[in-house]
């Protein structure tokens, strides 16, 4: 990552957290901007046009959720949420409102950088018709999938789910989002549909379905597709 392509805004009221995050991010050559509250953060986004926003959910005054709701009306800038233990509900709300991923404090810096990389990859749209991850090749226009050069038969819904994952790779997808996209608003509570299809995708596409590498579950929240692609 270089300074020009990676400008990161940190919105957190804790001075110490901001300082340590700055240190971590500058080590990987990011350009770091800071804001200690939501209003300042939003105006910084307008002025500085960062590539990524790291946002604390528990801000004083304007909450993190308010910031996302406001931001998503006029910007697609990826947002990574920082939250504390026992805030599952707020976390899901924030993700449904358009945040891209979350981390629970305290988190490791390795984890933080991995999430940032995944979000960075997502920004680049899939430019070719063929998409690769692991030993899997997906032919998007022809809706064909092969693993180790062997054709894998997917049902229509399985393929649609895979498409959603590829389109939003690296992003934390909530159950609500996937269920409504695939089966409509009435399926919002039917998480067992989703569990079934993810299990099928894993069994067909993962090397080891019991310890998945690509289709990751986030308990009680949703799924994240982490491709090991070079692009």
């Amino acid at each position, binding site marked *: 990552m270089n300074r020009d392509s990676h400008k990161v805004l940190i919105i957190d009221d804790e001075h110490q957290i901001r300082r340590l995050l700055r240190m971590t991010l500058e080590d990987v050559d990011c350009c770091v901007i800071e804001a200690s509250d939501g209003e300042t953060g939003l105006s910084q986004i307008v002025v500085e046009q960062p590539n990524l926003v790291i946002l604390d959910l528990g801000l004083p005054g304007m909450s993190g959720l308010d910031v996302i709701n406001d931001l998503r009306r006029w910007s697609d800038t990826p947002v990574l949420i920082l939250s504390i233990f*026992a805030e599952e509900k707020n976390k899901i709300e924030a993700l449904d409102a358009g945040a891209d991923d979350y981390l629970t404090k305290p988190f490791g810096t390795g984890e933080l950088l991995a999430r940032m990389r995944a979000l960075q990859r997502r920004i680049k749209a899939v430019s070719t018709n063929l998409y690769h991850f692991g030993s899997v090749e997906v032919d998007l226009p022809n809706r064909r999938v092969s693993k180790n050069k062997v054709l894998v038969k997917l*049902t229509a819904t399985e393929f649609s789910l895979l498409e959603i994952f590829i389109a939003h790779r690296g992003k934390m997808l909530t159950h609500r989002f996937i269920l409504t996209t695939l089966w409509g608003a009435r399926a919002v509570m039917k998480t*067992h*549909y989703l569990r*079934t299809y993810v299990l099928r995708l894993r069994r067909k596409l993962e090397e080891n379905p*019991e310890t998945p590498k690509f289709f990751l579950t986030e*308990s009680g929240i949703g799924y994240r597709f982490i491709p090991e692609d070079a692009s």
Partner: protein
Amino acid sequence: MGQALPLDYRPLGHLYLLAVIVISLRTPLRYAISTALLSAIAWDYIFIPPKMSFAVVDLDGSLLLGTYLFSAVLGSQLTARIQEERHSQENREQQARSLLDLAEALSQAHALEDIVKTTVKKTDDLFSARSALFLSDGKGLRWQAGSSLDIDEKTSVAVLREHPFAFAPYFREQYAYVNLNSSGESAGVLVLMIRKPPSSFRTIDQAFMQGVAAQIALALERERVQRQTHREALFAESEKMHRVLLNSVSHELKTPLAVLRTAAEKLPNSDAARSDVLHREIRVAMTRLDGLVANLLTQSRIQSGRLEAEFDWCDLRDVVFAVRRSVEPFLSQHTLIAEIPENFPFVFADCHLLQEAIYNLVNNAMRHTPPGSRVRLKAWESGERVGITVEDNGPGLEADYARDVFLPFRRGKAAGAGGVGLGLSIVHGLMLSQRGGAEYTHAPGGGAIFKLWIPRKPFEPLPPDES
């Protein structure tokens, strides 16, 4: 018929007298007097010559007539007195029985609510009145139960002040107020709305009312003492917990903090090898702090009842995988084996809480078993339950600890340093909040078996899909 009789009319008069006496012993006064008069007339008409006509009664006859009347009155009075005696005897017996009955009913009512209900119901029946019970709550009287009579707390307080004598009923308008005062302190007031005028309450009824009031006051006093004892016991228990918590938590917090401080101080002048060691120490201390804080938060959420499960379909494979990922860094000396049948159904639970419960058990097993031990996770279904078993081949739990293994702040004797004894109570709380449970058994070959379960729920079929 008179002519056929050889007797004089006077002895026959005695027969009439006998009849009057017999009748007067059996009937009220007015019948006895009527009988006496009728007898006199009949005697005069039939027997006194000239027979079958009214004759002028002579002195003898008048005397006998007077005797008739006198006997009738006397006999009736006697009967009335005996009857009244018997009646009051019966009444006393009835009241004694009622008191006994009340005492028994009250002795079976343990909670205040039951005592109050029993009291009102019984007094309604006993005095065929409508009653209401006001109890003192330290600040004043509060209506507790019974009819909403047309009196309020203020009136009762005023009456209580005017008439502080325990148990003796005090009549005012159509109400009878009874002060329930057993140990120098008034527990409250029983108010009865009576249908008959207060003057008709005789001494015996008032005594009965006092007896009833004494029973009620006794029951209230007993309940108060019980409550206080219970509160004191609870307080002592929470005091103990508080002390244990404070001791162990402060120990648990201070140890990693001390490590962090020392490591931070030593880092600047350490060579590469030593900084490696220090970094490792910092990471361990951090994990320990993190775990402790998470457990304390979860425990406080469980205890305050704020932990609400978000039910959702969970794939146990996902849950087990997440647990494996979080314990992996510390797994070097243990083996974690997971056995989930190929077609194992999804379970309806809070995936997050389920994961936390299993994580706590696996973490526990790793901490309390010697290196080289294995921890086995097994998914199972049985009847109306589905669940997962966490089994290790370590030493298991001591018999006396195994009984209350799920209570907070209890620790096995062999638990060693570290930990505050929250893990298992959290596991239990997490499972309860998902309408399930946790059980502990000894493994046949030593080792501990923890069984977590939740109710099974069938899921509806998936919508059609084209290939």
